[in-house]
Every structure is written in C-alpha cells, then in structure tokens.
C-alpha cells in the first residue's frame, strides 16, 4: 500500500488485535452493578497518560462533573480528543492534566490558545469529522477509515492521516487511523446500575466511542429500572457490557444544559468564557474544583438549590426527549 503522503502527527494508535484482547479480558459480560462515586470511578478508571474522549458539547450534556473530578484528582499527561468541546478541554489544560490534544475544535477564548503558543500543551490538528471517522473505525475493529476530506490541506499534513491511491477508482483517498481511547466519558439522561444507558437528542459519537474505548464511565442524570431498557430497545444508546462505571450525578452536565432536564447556566459559563490569564484560571479551579469535595458539594455550595431549580424549571422543551 503505497503512501502518497503521510501526516506528521504523533498518533495514539492501537492495533485492533490489542484492543480486542483488552475487550476480551476486561469488559465484563456479566450483569454486575457498577455504581460508583465519581471519586471511585475516576480513581479506578482514569490513569495518568490516558487518552480521553467525551461527548457531547460544553454547553449541552457535556460530562462536566466527571471532568472536574479528573482535575480534582490531578491526573497528569492526558491526551485529549477535543471534539466539539469548549471549556472541558480548557479546564483540563488549566488543571495541568492535559499535555496533548487532538484537535477537532480547540476550546474557545484565548486561554487555551495561549497554552498552545507557549508550548504548555501540544496539539495535533485533525477535524471533527476525521476524529468521528477514527472513532467509527475503532468501533468496528478495523485499522482505518477512508475519508474524502482533509485532502490538499495543511490540516492533513499536520494530522496523522495518510493518502493512498484508492484501488477501486485510482484516485487519491485519505485514510484516518482508528482511534481507541483509553477512556470515554459520557453524561446520559438515564442509566441503570449495570450500565445500560440512554441519551435523548443528538450525540457526537456516543456509541462509537463507547465501543472503541477501553474504559467507559457513564454519569447519569437519573437511574432507572433495568427493565425500562428492554421495554424500548430502540432507545438504548449503550448496552451495559460497554460500560465500566456508572455514577449517578444529577446536574452532572452543569453548567451545561441537559435537554428536557435543565437549561445551561449562562452566567456561570460567562465566568468560564472570561478566563484569560493563568491567575483567573487557577482562581476558578480553586473555587469550583479543588475547593469542593465532590459534585454534590459543588452543587450545594457553589450553585445552590434555588438556582438549580430555576434551571430545571426553564427546560420546558420536552418534545422528543422521552
């Protein structure tokens, strides 16, 4: 297979056979309860140096509470898949947790941009679609996925993709390597104790990433009876055997919104948007992350019931989310 062009990025690539071995040995087929606290879940399933991915966006259903717990536990040297996310990645950089970022979409605001310019974090440029395709390849157990974009650009040259001649048409085609994250974090509307999980609305690549990842941590807005999943199997987003840990975290996406459950907290988000200097970042982390024991304390002391109720009350669009 002659490579016409090869991008320069370092890639986290797992041979499909090695990933299969992991699945065989570590992913439990038995229906066992996997309910953990966020502290236990992150402590057990996120290690220094891990490659982590998450779904969905920073303003809608992002796994914010889990990300804050990673920072609280001061994980180091994470490689982050920054797909359609904004603050999570910036906070992970601010907390000194992330050293490398595969870019889909790199945060916003100037904080993270400066971290890159100053060399505190290394970025590898991909695209949102390429990362989603890489995840799909990882989820199918194949080594790469062909795509018809990236071609011709610096993004390609700085990515870890390759260009080859497609044997069927003779034309150049781009191959993106499979992505098998070490950890996938996802906040869902509903889960049971075994890990069956349901998301309402759209998602980036929830099933792809859960299948492609070694370790999957689900935080759930609400816990439901296992039979609920069997009564409406089309609504199941993740079957339990993909999932390693379930954490019951109401308002787990805060300050993002969760469709049909609560609106985003724009005021708090503006606090995040305003972070530019290192001092601001560390101030934010000290107050909202390090300064609390866990998500419950965060909600209790830093947000408050009244505000949470107000955000919930404003989530009046329920159509389609059931």
């Amino acid at each position, binding site marked *: 297979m002659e490579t016409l062009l090869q991008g320069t990025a370092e890639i986290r690539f797992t041979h499909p056979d090695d990933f299969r071995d992991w699945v065989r040995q570590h992913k439990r087929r038995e229906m066992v309860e996997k309910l953990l606290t966020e502290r236990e879940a992150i402590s057990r399933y996120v290690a220094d140096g891990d490659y982590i991915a998450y779904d969905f966006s920073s303003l809608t259903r992002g796994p914010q509470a889990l990300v804050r717990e990673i920072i609280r536990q001061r994980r180091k040297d994470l490689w982050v898949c920054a797909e359609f996310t904004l603050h999570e990645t910036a906070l992970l950089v601010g907390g000194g947790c992330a050293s490398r970022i595969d870019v889909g979409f790199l945060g916003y605001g100037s904080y993270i941009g400066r971290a890159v310019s100053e060399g505190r974090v290394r970025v590898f440029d991909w695209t949102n679609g390429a990362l989603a395709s890489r995840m799909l390849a990882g989820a199918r157990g194949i080594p790469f996925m062909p795509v018809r974009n990236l071609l011709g650009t610096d993004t390609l040259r700085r990515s870890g993709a390759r260009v080859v001649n497609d044997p069927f048409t003779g034309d150049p085609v781009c191959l993106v390597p499979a992505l098998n994250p070490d950890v996938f974090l996802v906040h869902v509307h509903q889960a049971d104790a075994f890990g069956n999980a349901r998301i309402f609305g759209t998602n980036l690549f929830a099933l792809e990433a859960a299948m492609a990842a070694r370790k999957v941590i689900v935080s759930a807005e609400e816990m439901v009876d296992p039979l609920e999943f069997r009564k409406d199997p089309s609504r199941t987003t993740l079957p339990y055997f993909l999932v390693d840990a379930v954490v019951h975290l109401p308002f787990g996406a805060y300050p993002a919104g969760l469709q049909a459950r609560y609106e*985003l907290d724009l005021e708090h988000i503006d606090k995040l948007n305003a972070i530019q200097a290192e001092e601001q970042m560390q101030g934010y982390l000290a107050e909202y992350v390090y300064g609390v024991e866990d998500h419950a304390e965060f909600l209790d002391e830093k947000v408050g019931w009244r505000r949470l109720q107000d955000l919930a009350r404003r989530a009046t669009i329920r159509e389609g*989310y059931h």
Partner: protein
Amino acid sequence: MVEFTDTECMICTAARLLEDRKTVFVGWGMPQLVAMLAERLYTPNLVQVFEFGAIGPQSLVPFVRGTMGGPTNVYRSLSWSNMNWAFAYAGTGYVDYGMIGAAQIDAYGNVNSTLLGGTYERPARRFPGSGGGNEVASLCWKTILVMKHEPRRFVERLDFMTSPGYLNGPGGREKAGLPRDTGPWRVVTSKALFGFDEETKRLALLGVLKGLSAGTVLEGMEFRPLVTERLEAIVPPTAEELRVLRQQIDPSGIVIRGEQMRAER
C-alpha cells in the same frame, strides 16, 4: 442612514445568498444566525444540517449563544442523529450549501482557521482549528465563507491551510482527491461579496456595500482579486432584517455586536 454592526452586515448579506428548498451545512456560531435569519425572512423551507446530527431543525428564537445541540437549536428537527451521519449526508452529495467562518483566505478561497504567525508548534495566535469546517469545505457542493472584512485577512499565502478552497487553482481539488465540482462559492465580508472566476478559480469581487467603492474595499489586500464589471451594490441590513435579528434572534445583543458601521438606505 442605517446603523449596524459588521457582524449584522455579514449575517444579513449571507442570509440573502441562501436558496429556499435546499440543504445547507451550518457551521457553529455566526452561520447559525445566518440560517435563522434566512429561515425567517427568505428561505422558510431551508433544510439545515448540523455537524452533531440534527437534520432540518426549525430552530427557536432567541438564539442561545454558544449552543448548537441545545433544545431550542434542534427544535422540531426531521431527524436527530450523530456526527458520522451528518457528514455522510455531505459526503454523498446531499448538502447543497456549506457555511463556515474564516480567519484568513487566499486568492483560491483556501481557508485558515487554525493559527496566525509563529511556527506550527508555537503559533503567535492559535484559533479553534477545523472543527467541521474542513468537512464542509470539502464535501458540500457550494461553500459560503463568512469573514470580517479586514484587508490583512486576504493573504497571498495562508499561515495554515485548514480547509480547502480551490487549492492551487483549476483542477486542484480533483487532483487532490476531493469530490468533483465542489468548492467555495461566495465569500461574504462585512463590506463586500466575492465569488470565484469560473476559469481561473480566483477570487472575484462581485459587490460592495452600498456607498463604498471597490478601491476602498480592496485596499490593503495582499493580492488583487478579479473585479466583476458590473459590481453589485450590497443593500445594507434592512429594517426588517435588523428587527428580526435584534428583537427575535439575539435580543441580548451579545452575539451580533461588533464594529459599528453605517450606510445609506
């Protein structure tokens, strides 16, 4: 005289370009407002496609800034799916228009949204990167680029080519393996409207904001675009457009704020 911001001007000019009963891949941010405005005033049957998987939403106002998958944005979609499917629609030719932002463009409509200055490893300024922009610019039939009008953004050589325009000229996209007959179609700025010359694939000035001259608009650009003989006078934001934008879409005024401009009605 009408007063408006450069952001409002871009949104209104872009909204008039969309075609009713067509599909459009809507990038994050300003393109969302363009589509919302167009849907309300010009193209009620526009089918929006969002990269995270909403197909054909009837987005509610006001726009919740920063969001793309929130319940108001994706209200009453035809289908809720995910990113791989969203881009598959573009990949198979189902998406007529794409609309994305840019930090720099060159004479062939190639786009930089990744970095400015310095080296790749240590850029002077780092931007978000492609997002889904590379997919949109590669796979949709006609791409509309939206960019604040600053002459220094029109460069001879991009600091980084994030998303493909016509690459190095006619046939460049096909040679690279990109889908046939695709490419940038219009560049909307806060002062001008550009297209591309069919033969050379080079940027061509099609219109300038009413009251401005081509010379003013092109001044300071690193390359000189072709200039169409009969330049269109771009109507500044109409009262109706501004009413919908300011009262319905962004009553907070945060998203549509920008540099103040004025023009003759």
